[in-house]
């Protein structure tokens, strides 16, 4: 480069300053995460010391007698998230494929805008709508039907209350769906048209082209979107607190009330005055932190494995 020698020293200084500044910002992020982890660990010490590993397996939650256990909260978090993902993932893939492959461009734009708006709606609105509208719908129409038809499964036994694990899972699905749809749609839009045209050129049907080319090409992005939605569902607080029923019991039935780690923290943090109570809540938070970390790592490995498979395929 002819001008390199001329720009010389000042360019080096600007470059170095830029490097230092961005490195400092990254360090702040790391420091923040370390700080949070440290606080959680420090405040969990008392509960972990008193209960040990039993804390994770015990479903007791009796503040009066200072007995605490994370099992019911962890169960609730995992089950409500599982319901949400089981429903949201296929639906959002279907909607995204529809928007990209099938719909008329103007309709796709309109629906796409609506999806993005839904993704931006604050979670507490979902919670309020869930309590005021959806719970009544569930109790009067949906749960009785499920109970009648599928009542032989322990999942759908018990009185329909409208509020409970199933309703919470469904609200979470509604919250996560627009999010995954929006990202998946963007991923699918980035598939090079020449690939899709080639598929059609050798006689593939629309479904074969979508499955074989678009979805496969965007695999990594879609998996990433799903895990992002998963992360949101795992930690969602307000929407779940309104409709999950806040009960510290583990029940096989999805109609029963339950709680998630986030909803327990939201409900009880304000008033935990005894040190052991507060420490138990911090330990719950630590467990959630750990769960999120585990799933993040899993996502990372899955995506990395897909990447290796792709390069292997070529």
């Amino acid at each position, binding site marked *: 480069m002819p001008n390199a020698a001329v720009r010389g020293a000042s360019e080096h200084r600007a470059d170095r300053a830029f490097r230092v500044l961005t490195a400092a910002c990254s360090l702040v992020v790391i420091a923040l995460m370390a700080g949070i982890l440290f606080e959680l660990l420090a405040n969990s010490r008392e509960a972990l010391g008193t209960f040990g590993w039993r804390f994770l397996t015990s479903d007791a939650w009796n503040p*009066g007698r200072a007995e605490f256990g994370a099992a019911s909260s962890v169960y609730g978090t995992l089950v409500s998230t599982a319901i949400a993902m089981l429903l949201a993932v296929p639906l959002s893939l279907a909607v995204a494929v529809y928007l990209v492959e099938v719909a008329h461009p103007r309709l796709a734009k309109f629906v796409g805008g609506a999806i993005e708006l839904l993704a931006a709606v604050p979670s507490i609105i979902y919670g309020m709508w869930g309590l005021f509208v959806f719970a009544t719908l569930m109790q009067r129409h949906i749960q009785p039907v499920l109970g009648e038809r599928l009542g032989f499964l322990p999942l759908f036994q018990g009185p329909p209350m409208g509020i409970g694990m199933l309703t919470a899972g469904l609200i979470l699905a509604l919250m996560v769906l627009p999010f995954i749809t929006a990202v998946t749609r963007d991923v699918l839009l980035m598939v090079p048209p020449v690939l899709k045209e080639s598929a059609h050129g050798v006689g593939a049907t629309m479904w074969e082209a979508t499955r074989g080319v678009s979805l496969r090409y965007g695999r990594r992005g879609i998996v990433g979107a799903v895990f992002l939605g998963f992360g949101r569902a795992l930690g969602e607080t307000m929407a779940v607190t309104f409709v999950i029923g806040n*009960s510290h019991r583990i029940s096989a039935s999805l109609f029963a009330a339950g709680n998630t780690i986030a909803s327990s923290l939201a409900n009880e943090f304000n*008033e935990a*005055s005894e040190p052991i109570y507060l420490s138990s809540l911090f330990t719950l938070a630590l467990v959630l932190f750990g769960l999120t970390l585990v799933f993040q790592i899993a996502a990372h490995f899955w995506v990395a494995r897909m990447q290796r498979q792709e390069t292997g395929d070529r």
Partner: protein
Amino acid sequence: MSMRSKAVLITAALVFALSLTAPAVAVTLNGAGATFPEPIYALWMSKYHDLTKARINYQGIGSSGGIRQIKAKTVDFGGSDAPMKGPDLREAGLIQFPMVVGGVVPIVNIEGVDAGELRLTPDVLADMFAAEITYWNDERIATLNPQIALPDEPITIVHRAEGSGTTWIFTNYLDKISPKWHETIGTGKIVPWPGGVGAKGNPGVANYVQRVDGSIGYVEFAYAVQNDLAYVLLRNSAGEFVSPTIESFQEAAANADWANADGYYLVLTDQPGEGSWPIVGATFILMQKEQDDAATARSLLEFFDWCYTHGGEMAIEKDYVPIPENVANMVRETWKTELACDGKPVW
């Protein structure tokens, strides 16, 4: 001096001058705690603001929350319906005094059943909340209510999700009248309910009972009235079925022996009297003994003093029983002797 620095100087001078002439900021005081008295507190605080421009904020987060916040000094006063015992108060460096008395009523959501129609006895009530009676058309409920066509529906219990003084008063009553309850569940701000759903605050319970068919819950009476909920008639210790009214609350509260209560610790459940409502309780204000700012403390006490002397009618309107004048005087004495700022009394 350049134009720019002149402009800066003039602006600074103006701002300074304006700040000197700004009107005195009105007093703002913060409290948090029980949702039990929130309806009457909200009314008193609003009227007091109209009169004196002092703003008192109160957040209903539950009695346990109130106790925690006042212990942590994040608020100026805490509200709790579960009174602390004398030794615990002294250990925490707090004083507590009763502000008003109210009634806790069971509320139900059954198709076709209106307020004051369903009759329950203490043991049936306890067994319903202990999940021993699980269907509405159970024989024991049906025999008490032959005139009502009870549905073949399961009973959904609605209780409080967080630590609640209302729960404390309610479970205190159930504990007294049911040996089984005493053994298995007991009294507490938070107890191991056998099932059902938990709601936040008295408003939350009222809300859930409204939404869930076939549910039963318990709220302070003002919430049942506000939300037009179907409250229940209970049989009291004299064997009479009573309705929750200001008169039945007053009759129960008339038994209160405040003079002999250490730290004003007094429980008013299951009180004698032909027309007494069985589930009545006082709600308390908690304050730090050592006040950081004498002026703030004094403003707060002036508000409570006003509530004692002028808030009685408003309380009765909302179906709360006001604290009698002689007890209010006892409380004022307590303020004089117990509250201090830097060694000097604030009242």
